[in-house]
């Protein structure tokens, strides 16, 4: 009889033993971890390992090796925008000097509080000033940040980064992320931990009515993934609302 089985009638015993036998047989058919999952976990662990170690002091700027964002913070409610134009209002600069990095495979500290504003952002409160040039990118690879305010659905998610819809404000629920580069960096890190790769595009918007940042991730395996995350992104995880392969 199965462990943890109270007294029962003989028929019930037989039935419950049959259940246990079914479960054992089912367990015997458990497939091993898929190789791609092993790779994914290894990558996630490597990313975590280089982010922060539980027993170490905070990583200094000099020792941080991650390309992490130098983000134009600069979103101020009410400012904006060029109607009818897709506006990339800021960029995540993956700048780092060559001497900072001893390994290309070794990302840095997303939680680094010393993230700097972009070199070109002379006025961090006027991100709109950059919009006439569209989303800013650099040759060091950058994420394009949009504030479309669009309400994406599962079918329109692939259009992230192409929308011409412009909204003049970010939903209140997303202000934590739009106004704090560290918070947004942590959010991107959470997304990239789940889907190893780089956030290439992010749009402060809605997903099926919920305040959301919709991102496109360029994955290390060459694929792309579209992810809608909620307002709690970066707090305890990505707060994923929806994800799909692009």
């Amino acid at each position, binding site marked *: 009889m199965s462990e*943890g089985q109270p007294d029962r009638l003989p028929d019930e015993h037989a039935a419950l033993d*049959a259940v246990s036998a079914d479960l054992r047989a089912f367990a015997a058919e458990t497939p091993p971890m898929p190789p791609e*999952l092993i790779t994914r976990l290894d990558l*996630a662990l490597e990313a975590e390992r280089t982010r922060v170690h539980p027993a170490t002091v905070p990583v200094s700027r000099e020792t941080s090796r991650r390309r992490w964002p130098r983000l134009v913070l600069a979103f101020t409610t009410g400012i904006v925008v060029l109607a009818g134009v897709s506006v990339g209002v800021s960029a995540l600069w993956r700048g780092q000097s060559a001497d900072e990095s001893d390994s290309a495979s070794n990302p840095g500290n997303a939680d680094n509080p010393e993230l700097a504003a972009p070199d070109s952002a002379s006025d961090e409160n006027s991100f709109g000033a950059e919009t006439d040039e569209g989303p800013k990118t650099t040759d060091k690879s950058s994420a394009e940040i949009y504030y479309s305010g669009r309400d994406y659905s599962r079918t329109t998610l692939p259009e992230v980064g192409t929308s011409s819809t412009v909204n003049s404000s970010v939903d209140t629920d997303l202000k934590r992320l739009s106004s704090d580069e560290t918070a947004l960096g942590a959010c991107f890190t959470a997304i990239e*931990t789940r889907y190893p790769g780089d956030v290439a595009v992010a749009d402060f918007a809605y997903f099926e009515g919920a305040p959301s940042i919709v991102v496109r991730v360029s994955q290390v395996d060459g694929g792309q993934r579209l992810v809608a995350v909620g307002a709690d992104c970066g707090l305890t995880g990505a707060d994923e609302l929806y994800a799909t392969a692009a």
Partner: protein
Amino acid sequence: MAPVSNFDEVDDGELLRRHLVGDHEAFGELFRRHRERLWAVALRTLGHPEDAADALQDAMISAYRAAGRFRGDSAVTTWLHRIVVNACLDRVRRNKVRAAQPLPEGGPEPVSSEGDPSKVATNMAVAEALDALPFDQRAALVLVDMMGYPVSETGRILEVPEGTVKSRCARGRTRLAELLGHLRNPDADPVVPSTSPQRADRTRGESGT
């Protein structure tokens, strides 16, 4: 501390300690040792490979970050299992909140179509029936009946008394027996259509039981 490449003689607790003092390889080795069993727990508890993969990754990162809070009250492997089960529970809750949304990819774990057709059908029925159980019963059955862990160990993983594990298992088995048709006719082949979980549910509903 310099990384140690050969961990053969190093126990789990020592790996965790080394991780905490900066051995960058130690946690990876610790997780590698147990990941297949942790994967099995996640997969059988959640039923969906994509969800199981997400839960396992969440658990791994949680364990990595929380290593300093491990007090040694239980075995390291027990602690890892507990984190995985909690990650599975988090995912179940998340999926409930977003029940209207489909999974990112795929659906329930595809049961292998190779081998004895009746065995395949039984496994499909068992998978569906397990999915119909409340999480606490499913987790207990996965750990006790499927993974073969003792009730005492399962109690430590789930952080509940042994009696609770037993009652969860008992209730879960009873429910599965109903869903799989064993309880009405213990000798019946559970793979015949009339004993599929959905069919069994309908039958009960029609009979008013």
